[in-house]
């Protein structure tokens, strides 16, 4: 076990954990953050996605010791401090994008990371960025619409 300090959703947390423990279990079981969810534990589906210094990463396969001082953001930390939904979240809400929604961390956070670096992503670029994600319910058409909607609202805000 090792003590370490994690920056999660803008706050510092001291945790005493097995350094090999995947970040996912630290977020869920030590910090009681519900949204990174276990899907496969193999990095194959994206249900456990978090942002690490603004990049979408799979927390199920990332040992917590590798996080260091990186800033971790989960769905819980995406809204503004005043509680306004992030415009990417709002776009997914406006499109009513999901069925069960269990997978949504992967899609919402991958979309955010994509639009941060490529605000005018084409449909083909969106699909390529999302190819490694699974949505078992098949909500893809709404998800793609939501990402395009988010890109548009981002362009208006910029």
């Amino acid at each position: 076990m090792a003590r370490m300090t994690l920056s999660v959703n803008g706050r510092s947390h001291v945790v005493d954990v097995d350094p090999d423990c995947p970040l996912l279990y630290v977020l869920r079981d030590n910090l009681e953050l519900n949204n990174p969810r276990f899907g496969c534990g193999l990095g194959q589906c994206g249900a456990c996605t978090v942002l690490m210094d603004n990049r979408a990463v799979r927390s199920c396969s990332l040992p917590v010791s590798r996080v260091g001082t990186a800033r971790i953001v989960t769905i819980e930390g995406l809204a503004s401090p005043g509680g306004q939904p992030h415009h990417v979240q709002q776009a997914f809400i406006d499109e009513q994008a999901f069925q069960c929604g269990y997978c949504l961390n992967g899609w919402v956070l991958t979309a955010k990371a994509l639009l941060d670096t490529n605000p005018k992503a084409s449909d083909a670029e969106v699909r390529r960025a999302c190819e490694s994600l699974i949505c078992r319910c098949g909500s893809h058409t709404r998800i793609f619409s939501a990402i395009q909607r988010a890109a548009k609202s981002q362009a208006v805000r910029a």
Partner: protein
Amino acid sequence: MKTHKGGITRREFVRDAGGLVIGFSIIDAAITPQLFAQSTVATAVPPSPKKLESWLHILPDGSVQVFTGKLEIGMGVDTAFTQIVAEELDLSPLRVKFVLGDTATTTDQGGVGGSTSVSLGARPLRNVSAAARAALVQRASQQLGVPVDQLQVKDGVVRAAAGSRAAAAGSTGLQARQVTYGELATAIAAEQDLKVSGAGFALNVESSAKPKDPSKYTVVGTSVPRIDMAPKILGTYKYVVDVRVPGMLHGRVVRPAGVGATLVSVDDSPAKTIPGYVKTVVEKDFVGVVCEHEWAAVKAAKAIKVTWSAPLQAFPEQKDLYNYMRAATPKSTRKAPKTGDVDAALAGAAKKLDAKYDVPFQSHATMGPGCGVADVRPDGITTVWSGGQKPHALQKGYAELLGVPAERVRVVWMQDAGSYGRPGFEDAGADAVLLSKAVGKPVRVQWMRHDMTAWGAKGPACVYDLAGAIDAQGNVTGVRFVSRAFSGGEILYLPDAAGNYLGAQLTGIRNTTGVDEFADWGANAPPYRFPSLDASSHVLAGFHESASPLRSTHLRDPEGPATSFAVECFIDELAAAADIDPIELRLKHIDEPRAKYALRAAADKYGWESRPSPRPNNSGNVVVGRGIALGVRNGTYVGTIAEVEVNRTSGVVKVTRLVCSHDCGLIVNPDALKSTIAANLVQSLGRTTKEEVMFDRSSVTSVDWNSYKVARASDVPASVEIVLIDRKDLPPGGAGEPSSRPTAAAIANAVFDATGVRIRQLPLSPERVKAAVNV
């Protein structure tokens, strides 16, 4: 109807003289309920459907709490319920809150199944809402001194209708002007008995109050945003995986080395050095570990040394599966009533067609692999949190597993990841029960990916042999249909007995609940009418009687997609052989106007050019085609058209366009319905082109997302177009499954149209397509 005095948000009620008190907050009911036994005498009496208060409470703030044994598994059913209740009560949907699937507080409505939640499950909700409205208006009439027929209700405020005599009187100040549902709720509720009929899905209650005429609907039929969607996307929604009970431990299970492997020994000494390790639980062939932390449990499950006997070679080689199925002696057979003389039709046919269709085992492969939390107290009082589709059945099954009366077990449904039938959430809950019982503390079991994909029950493999006769004039004169399938109920979809669960089977409890469910023509294919028809269906025995990773059960639209793949492709074959357009042939042989309308609606939207398949002059390397299929399921009609590009070199089938017409009667929420249909189309596209459970002689070898492939972003058509057919004159029907049904046949028919090659085996993988088109 139960009403509440004052501003209480907690309710406590004594269930019987035995002294069991169930106390919980309505708001966090699903998260923290505990049963507090004051005696060892059992316990909680389930709410009686006869009582209005079992269904509906008016709260002091004027909002309504509705209790239903139905659930929400991702398709927005609770939003539809909200609209239906709000409509009858003349209340804003924002003031309607639901408790779903808690056996202590909701009636047994059979849980979810058969796409019946709105068509059947909403009926009692509509009727109790109408009964409550009538009682509230009656009470308002007494308080306001205004006759009932002169009152109107708007968002829970009862006042004299504009223009009525009472309104005129009220305006002079002689009468109180209005009263709210919240104010009326402080009055003592009148006991009201409802007339109960049916059970399970068909449970209904009625009173003398008549529900609204659908022509007056203002909330039903509108695209109210789904009540779960914003909370999910904002991260405040709680799934079953998020349940945390004080003192809760974490469990993982270790499954046998293959089918029929029995436990030889367990050495848990390597796990003892893992901080937080609690115990390895062994009961015959059931093995699990329990730890204080989830990661410790993951590690401990890997660390313990488990030795199994050699597994049985119970399965055929995968390449021999369909031959095995055709050669096996059926366990049971069902024949549909014969029409005409098929033998004579075939003997006298100008053209005779024979075709064999094969559909593999498929997996639910839910996004989350299954999770259950159980708190089995030493006195047998038990709470289980589960995402299983049938909480009231689970209550009985878990009670049997524990050897206690059902009344001592409370099952609280919470949403898991999708569901699509009987995916294994039931088994994960049973694992939690077994582990919690063994350690005497609450245990959360989260399955690993392979526990779901490899060991979860499967949608059954099905094979079909079809023959058809066409006369000299090009008319279809007869069809013979023979199916052979593993039972859709080998593991009963109603999980109400201990033997139903995988973990329980590993402890040695036999599955005595299985039923023979057939891949039959009648329920699973459109009701075509031919001069002669002979349809028979066989169920095959499972490969192994207990704890088989190829045990079969309900997977979304059980036997529907498979049977429709065979029948709707064969209809296409007949049309091609008769050299007529495939829609024209279907219209000729089906009577139901709604089926015809659905076909035409899809064709119009697509811009269907009437001609026989295959498409002429399609000789390039990348060829394009279109195909149609019809789905008819319990009064819902679906016409799906697929457009594909087939690459002859790579064998890749790219679905470029899907058009789907959908008639499920009256539409409650058009936008949520469209979203569910679009998702059905994409999921079933994956089942058509990718999904196949892989196995060797003893084990399932498709264990994760690399070895069990499903639809991904690159598979999704550029255009998915849905045509909703709203039937305001009909009751709402089912929509959860029907649009899964015709997709496979539509795509396979499009591949034929493009290539002239008929592929009769799913999935339409690049290897299979490449081999077929390059003969």
